[in-house]
């Protein structure tokens, strides 16, 4: 293929990933609101460009750690979307057998080391994963996703220093959607922001428009190349916007409607779609919608986990009687 057609193929693949994430989360939010999916989901709608632009530069052997808002990271890394949907519905055959739910999606087969219900908790885990990769001389890196709220937690400071100190192969990705749960993060964060904090610990930082997937892809490509070349950890500060509330049922009354509307005008999917063949885009979006609707139907048809599963995989020694 020519480099032009290569580039088109890459763009089409990224559009497909973003469309699949959005379709997945549309279904997930609907299932949560209807009560079909128990518990809560934290949608990343509007932020797909960050997950996809970063993961386009990762290989299967690379690992990621994710957050409570992690569906996009998982799908972008190649996780099984059907198993994820079953997991959200608490069904047998889900990614975690119905024992984790949305906040604990993991797919180790593709290097997805788990979403996390604790803000910033993936940062130390990513550092350790990178240390193990080095110790075993594996050819892989780790991408660590976290939100802007995480920069006010202690493990953020510890992890930046740690990764820089040991020059670990970690790409830190701060998905800055502007909100720490219900609070505008700028209202509770002093100083110069995430990138300044990372650089203060010796982790070089780059900023990118997270709503422009091509920009994310380009910057991530450069940072990932540095990491693979032994350049140590890198930090990507990706500005974006969370279209939905903190959870699928949060109406986000704490922010002006115009602000969210403006973000919808910057839609990462539409911005990329504008560069592609409209028919192809429509086909990809229809296919993504059909796939995820199918997964939702499959989830509703799937059996509940066997009751005994509540007592398995606790521990070997001293397991529940």
């Amino acid at each position: 293929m020519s480099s032009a057609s290569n580039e088109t193929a890459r763009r089409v693949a990224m559009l497909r990933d973003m469309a699949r994430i959005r379709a997945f989360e549309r279904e997930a939010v609907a299932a949560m609101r209807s009560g079909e999916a128990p518990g809560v989901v934290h949608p990343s709608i509007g932020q797909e460009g960050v997950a996809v632009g970063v993961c386009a530069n990762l290989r299967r052997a690379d690992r990621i750690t994710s957050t409570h808002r992690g569906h996009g990271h998982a799908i972008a890394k190649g996780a099984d979307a059907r198993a994820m949907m079953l997991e959200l519905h608490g069904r047998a055959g889900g990614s975690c057998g119905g024992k984790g739910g949305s906040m604990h999606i993991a797919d180790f087969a593709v290097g997805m080391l788990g979403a996390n219900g604790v803000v910033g908790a993936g940062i130390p885990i990513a550092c350790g994963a990178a240390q193990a990769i080095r110790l075993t001389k594996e050819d892989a890196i780790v991408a660590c996703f976290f939100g802007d709220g995480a920069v006010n937690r202690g493990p953020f400071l510890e992890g930046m220093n740690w990764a820089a100190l040991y020059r670990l192969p970690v790409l830190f990705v701060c998905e800055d959607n502007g909100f720490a749960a219900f609070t505008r993060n700028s209202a509770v964060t002093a100083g110069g922001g995430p990138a300044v904090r990372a650089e203060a610990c010796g982790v070089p930082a780059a900023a990118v428009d997270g709503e422009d997937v091509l920009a994310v892809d380009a910057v991530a490509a450069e940072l990932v190349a540095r990491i693979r070349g032994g350049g140590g950890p890198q930090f990507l500060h990706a500005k974006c916007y969370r279209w939905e509330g903190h959870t699928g049922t949060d109406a986000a009354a704490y922010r002006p409607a115009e602000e969210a509307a403006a973000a919808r005008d910057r839609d990462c999917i539409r911005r990329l779609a504008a560069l592609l063949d409209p028919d192809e885009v429509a086909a990809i979006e229809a296919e993504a919608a059909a796939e995820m609707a199918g997964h939702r139907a499959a989830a509703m048809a799937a059996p509940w986990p066997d009751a005994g599963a509540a007592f398995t995989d606790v521990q070997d020694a001293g397991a529940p009687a």
Partner: protein
Amino acid sequence: MTRMTFAEAARRALAEEMRRDPLVWALGEDLVQGGIFGQYKGLSEEFGTDRIVSTPISESTIMGAGLGAALCGTRPVVEMRIADFTLCAMDELVSQIAKVRYMFGGQGRAALVVRMPQGMWRNSAAQHSQCLEAWLTHIPGLVVAAPGTPADAAGLLKAAVRSDDPVVLMEPKNLWTAEGEVPAEIAPIPFGVARQAAQGDALTVVTWSAMVPVVEQAARESGVACDVFDLRSLWPWDEAAVIASAQRTARLLVVHEAVTVSGFGAEVVARVVEALGPGGLKAVERLGAPRAPIPFSPPLEDSIRLSPTRVAAAIRRVAG
């Protein structure tokens, strides 16, 4: 058998495990310098600073990095320096390490060891002397071991390194320099198997960790013939041995250094009463610390510390 200190026995066990398995490595503060109790002495020279890693004072990341490293196939030994500092890493231990296998449906395992030397250590005061084993036995997913002899320090450490479960190893700070006989070939000691330190029909005494030598001495000095069990591991623990003994003696004393209120002794007594029925015991007592922080001044500390004399008095009380 060779006579050696608790620290030397633990050091040897870890060195042997690191020679056996190149995926075993250790991380924590001051490890290259040998650790604060000398339990890592010489290991960085033998295994290099990629496997004996001195870290910043970053407890959350020491613990959390151990988890990430375990999820990528290595077997980390996470050193917390002292148990009190684990409180800075409780999310990583309790909500991450203990739960990953379960909440990810068995995809990943936290096969790692968390060493947290605990308990009183001469005049270390309130923030460096706590016994927190009961907190951790309460957490599903964790194995909790608490050796009280050099031989068990070595054997339990080996078992912990080889376990696919996350194992919390609570070594008693006060016993690092205590000496004991250690087998030339250190074998892993299975979790949940108590060591019977003395035999007798008058009562059943259950203890662990730093109280082991205290109780053994007290039992000798009391002149009362008692079954003495060193539990060695607290989850799982040897319920069968303790219940069988208590059924025979009908008298039960549990001795631990930790605060008595909500201590693990409450669990031991409750399980025995459940097994034997409310009328199954003629006498029962828990002997632990008062619900007070550990003071600094030697005479104040001694007022909280359990001595062989105090334990012997309790043995005689329960024996009736």
